């Protein structure tokens, strides 16, 4: 434990160095190298303790509030998330080092990392904040670390303040972050009131009454949910995540949302005691809404990083569905199935942190190479940036949940848990889980469409702009930063069982069972969790089958296909003659249109406007698409109107006479005294 604390302290030291040595050319090497080293240390520590069968390292630091002090503790759950956070930290540092140098050298990057705000001192602080949240073992330290994490990431978003959209994104982010922290503050307040002790150990021993527990569940879903991006609290996320430099976007989207998931798991499974069945129902409902809405949003984006941010919303939805299922099964006293659902959640947490980091890195590489995040200005990058293209393909395949990659395993486990719904006794839950399962299937299918669109438009076809045509492959550090998560995506897809075995201590801690309990035959290459249906999955066989099929297909095409040479323009859409590449090829909007037509016109009020010139006019026809986010219309706008109205009313308080001020205070005093008198009865 001392090691982890020292590593975090080292991150702070690196931050100071980053601030002090800002002008030096070696500063970024020192900061990113130091951060990667500290992250590697923590990740290794957590992995070793976890492999050793459940760590329980604790430490009390003599800082913080005098009567509480800072309780730190790393149990199995913390260890799982420590691995996720610090693995993300290592790859992001590696990528960020190359990214920063690329943008430093070019001096003309549209999102110049080093010319804009101070990323170097804030970057290690952000990672330190996330690590501190994971090892906090009392409410005060937790909230402090949480706020620290939020503020560091907020400042990192602000580091690109010269871009026109950043101020709005940053303002919305700080509002939502404050809202989330306020909810968490209230939640921990309710949890601690029983005995006035803020340490997690005391809270765990004195589970709150049913009413208070219900309040805590709602507050946690609002508080941690706003950080994770649950619909309808997601509105800040697609604005803020893409605004930061790409490696920070990767951390915010791939890792920080997982810290929010950690907060949910910690409170819902650990601190609150025995769950009620409806907690899981509510959680699942939110998750399903989030998954479907998130992917629909993602399908309508033309900005690569914003698309990825919306896709994070979708993946968080899937994770939250798994959490809800685990809660339901835990309440129904079928711990093995609960462990199965929770294992699906944790696996998806790891998976998403890997492939979302990878995809954000790929977006950063595209941005470095072409200077654009607009899908409609990319295209044909597979020829210019082959390594990035292959690695991005792995990421896109993984996030689309295609076998034999890791995304598939996570979704498969989740569906295994969903298929156990008939074992439940509440009819409402059985029906809800069926609906949720259908929604999840829809979301997964749409996600696949979404990433076919992303990959196809960005990497295939012809370049849609001069910059895309002249792109060059990014540096070695950036490619390596992408390669590490890509390799892990493949490895975890083929051999997921050892990782799930690694989770077992955390699962035993939270639901008192492992997903493999009750199965005698358990080789390490075969994933066979216990469930009512008794299915199993083998990534190795899947890999071999897919490889064989590919070979057969390739050979068949090469042998059997006609070898007559045909010349035509790729993506010509029937046009012959002059190269129609940029104008007439299939665009991102074209790809999204069928789905936008099917869902968008009702859910998002999407409208296509065609500006058709009169016959004889040489002006080109233009298609423009408008859509509105229902969360803005239903939640954010009424809320901001209400706040504005209230502020208007409260503003009058500024112009009262002295006697009225005294009267107000007097009345407040009297009201408080009356409340005391009433409660004393």
């Amino acid at each position, binding site marked *: 434990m001392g090691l982890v604390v020292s590593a975090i302290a080292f991150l702070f030291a690196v931050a100071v160095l980053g601030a002090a040595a800002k002008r030096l050319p070696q500063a970024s090497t020192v900061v990113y190298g130091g951060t990667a080293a500290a992250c590697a240390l923590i990740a290794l520590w957590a992995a070793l303790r976890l492999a050793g069968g459940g760590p329980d390292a604790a430490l009390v630091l003599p800082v913080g509030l005098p009567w509480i002090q800072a309780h730190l503790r790393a149990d199995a759950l913390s260890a799982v998330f420590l691995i996720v956070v610090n693995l993300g930290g290592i790859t992001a540092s590696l990528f960020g080092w190359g990214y920063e140098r690329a943008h430093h050298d070019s001096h003309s990057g549209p999102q110049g990392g080093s010319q804009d705000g101070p990323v170097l001192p804030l970057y290690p602080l952000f990672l330190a904040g996330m690590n501190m949240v994971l090892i906090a073992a009392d409410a005060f330290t937790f909230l402090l670390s949480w706020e620290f994490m939020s503020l560091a990431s907020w400042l990192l978003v602000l580091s690109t303040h010269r871009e026109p959209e950043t101020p709005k994104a940053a303002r919305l982010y700080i509002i939502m972050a404050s809202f989330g922290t306020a909810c968490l503050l209230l939640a921990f307040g309710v949890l601690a009131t029983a005995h006035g002790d803020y340490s997690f150990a005391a809270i765990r021993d004195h589970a709150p009454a049913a009413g208070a527990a219900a309040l805590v569940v709602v507050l946690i879903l609002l508080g941690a949910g706003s950080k994770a991006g649950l619909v309808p609290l997601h509105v800040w996320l697609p604005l803020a995540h893409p605004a930061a430099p790409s490696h920070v976007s990767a951390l915010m989207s791939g890792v920080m949302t997982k810290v929010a998931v950690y907060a949910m798991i910690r409170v819902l499974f650990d601190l609150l005691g025995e769950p009620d069945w409806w907690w899981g129902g509510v959680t699942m409902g939110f998750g399903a809404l989030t998954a479907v809405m998130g992917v629909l949003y993602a399908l309508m984006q033309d900005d690569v990083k914003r698309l990825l941010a919306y896709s994070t919303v979708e993946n968080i939805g899937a994770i939250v569905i798994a959490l809800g299922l685990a809660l339901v099964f835990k309440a129904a006293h079928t711990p093995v199935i609960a462990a199965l659902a929770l294992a699906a959640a944790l696996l998806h947490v790891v998976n998403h942190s890997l492939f979302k980091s990878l995809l954000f890195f790929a977006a950063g590489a595209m941005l470095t190479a072409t200077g654009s995040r607009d899908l409609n200005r990319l295209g044909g990058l597979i020829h210019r940036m082959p390594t990035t293209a292959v690695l991005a393909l792995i990421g896109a395949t993984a996030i689309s949940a295609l076998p034999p990659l890791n995304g598939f395993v996570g979704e498969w486990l989740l569906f295994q848990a969903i298929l156990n719904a008939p074992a439940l006794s509440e009819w409402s839950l059985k029906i809800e889980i069926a609906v949720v399962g259908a929604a999840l299937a829809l979301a997964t299918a749409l996600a696949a469409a979404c990433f076919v669109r992303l990959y196809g438009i960005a990497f295939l076809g012809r370049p849609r702009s001069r910059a895309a045509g002249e792109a060059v492959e990014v540096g070695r550090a950036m490619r390596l930063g992408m390669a590490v998560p890509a390799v892990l995506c493949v490895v975890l897809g083929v051999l997921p069982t050892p990782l799930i075995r690694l989770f077992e201590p955390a699962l035993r801690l939270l639901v008192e069972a492992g997903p493999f309990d009750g199965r005698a035959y358990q080789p390490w290459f075969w994933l066979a969790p216990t469930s009512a249906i008794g299915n199993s999955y083998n990534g190795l066989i899947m890999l071999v089958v897919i490889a064989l099929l590919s070979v057969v297909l390739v050979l068949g095409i090469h042998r059997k296909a006609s070898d007559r040479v045909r010349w035509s323009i790729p993506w010509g859409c029937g046009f012959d003659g002059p190269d129609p590449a940029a104008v007439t090829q299939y665009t991102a909007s074209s790809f999204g249109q069928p789905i936008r037509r099917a869902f968008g016109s009702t859910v998002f009020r999407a409208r296509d406007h065609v500006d058709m010139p009169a016959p004889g006019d040489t002006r080109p026809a233009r298609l423009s698409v408008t859509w509105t986010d229902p969360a803005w219309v239903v939640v954010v706008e009424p809320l901001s109107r209400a706040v504005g109205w209230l502020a208007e009313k409260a503003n009058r308080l*500024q*112009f009262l*006479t*002295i*006697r009225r001020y*005294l*009267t107000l205070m*007097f009345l407040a*005093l*009297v009201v408080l*005294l*009356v409340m*005391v*008198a009433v409660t*004393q*009865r």
Partner: protein
Amino acid sequence: MSDLGYDVAHMLGAVVLLMSFALLYQRRLFSLLNVFTMQALALTATAAWQAYSHGEPHLYITALLTLVLKAILIPVALHRIVVKMKIHRTIEPALGIGLTMVAGVSLVTLSILLVLPVTADATALTRENLALSLSVVLLGLLMMISRRNAVSQVVGFMSIENGLILAAVGVAGMPLVVEMSVAFSVMVAFIIFGIFLFHIRERFDTLDMQKIESFRGESD
């Protein structure tokens, strides 16, 4: 403590409270100052009686301080201010007298309802005493908000302080330092108030808060 000691202490505390009501009832500044003097005298008597019956000689000092400061020095000074500023004929309740009295009575009820259950394990004298002094404090606040004139607001403030002293002498074992510091802070407050009153008068030609408000930059 004997029954007599209890009764007398109770009675003296009640007189202080009665004077608070009398303060609320006054319409003229001179009579207001006179009633305030009487409240201070009653407070002096309370302190002296507590010193005698409890055998705590340091309370005599409190009594002496109260007598000199509250019953002689401050009323005389305020009297001179009123004469000097020629505002002794001012009639100035901002709230109707009847309404103020009703509010005062309900405040006393509230403080009794509040204090008696909270201090269930304290001695009877302390409980009564705390209820009385809380009432005096609340009535002083009520006085401050129900009057327009700055001088009577100062008197309201001073009577709040009387309530605090009443609570202090009623609780056994309150160290002298507390009372001394309260007394001196009131002294300082009074001096500042005096200076301010003259400055306000000099600048705005009135002590009526309603009129002074209109000089504030932001109000319309």
